């Protein structure tokens, strides 16, 4: 993955959009730019661990966001 597409748009980052509509336009432009709009989704598409959440929401949230600084 190139550094160039780690951000939706370098230009847009310099000048943040002011409206939801602007943000949506930017997201659509990003999808077009990375060539993702015509790709088929995997069968049975899903993400997450709802079972873990339901078993113990406190543990789930702690494990998924152990530190509050949100760093990778």
């Amino acid at each position, binding site marked *: *993955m190139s550094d160039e*597409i*780690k*951000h*939706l748009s370098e230009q847009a*980052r310099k000048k943040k*959009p002011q*409206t*939801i*509509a*602007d*943000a*949506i336009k*930017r*997201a*659509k432009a*990003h*999808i077009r730019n*990375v*060539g*993702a*709009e015509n*790709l*088929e*989704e*995997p*069968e*049975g*598409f*899903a*993400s*997450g*661990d*709802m*079972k873990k*959440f*339901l078993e113990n*929401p406190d543990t789930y949230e702690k494990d*998924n*966001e152990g530190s*509050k*600084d*949100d760093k*990778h």
Partner: protein
Amino acid sequence: MLATHRDAEERYARMRQAVLDEVNKDLISSRHIEARARLIDQTALLQSERWGNSARRRVDWQWVEGYNLFKFRHPKRFEMALWHGNNLVSLSLGRPTYNGSKLRIDFIEGNPEKPDGIKVFEYTFIAMVGYAQVLGADELRVMNPINTDVKRYYETFGLNYVPKSDYLYIRL
């Protein structure tokens, strides 16, 4: 429910709806003219229970239980039910991180029997970017992709995988 919790729920519900209104404007003017983005309601939750009958389903989730608990805990949550006509196409649910600078999607599932050509993540991503704008978040995260195919699919959107914590992210 405390008054402060109720106030937050109502305030953020208006924000969520404002984002979905904008997403729907885009859907109406696009090739997805029959698709609509809505908040998750009882109709959507009931329809999601039919997904358990599909052999194509990859998860065994109870959205009614999961949504109600998540809703109670997270008034600032992101949520979306994507419809195609009268068919529920997907449900998604997430929340801002503790300091509010990131918006994460905790659970997303596509209807395992959705029609060909109807995609789930594209408009979820668009709605998340819209809600991130409202919150002032500068990063999206997708938690716990269920398999390698799904992870790779997210990567085609420019998301970067963090193996240590099993999520993908993109800076906005």
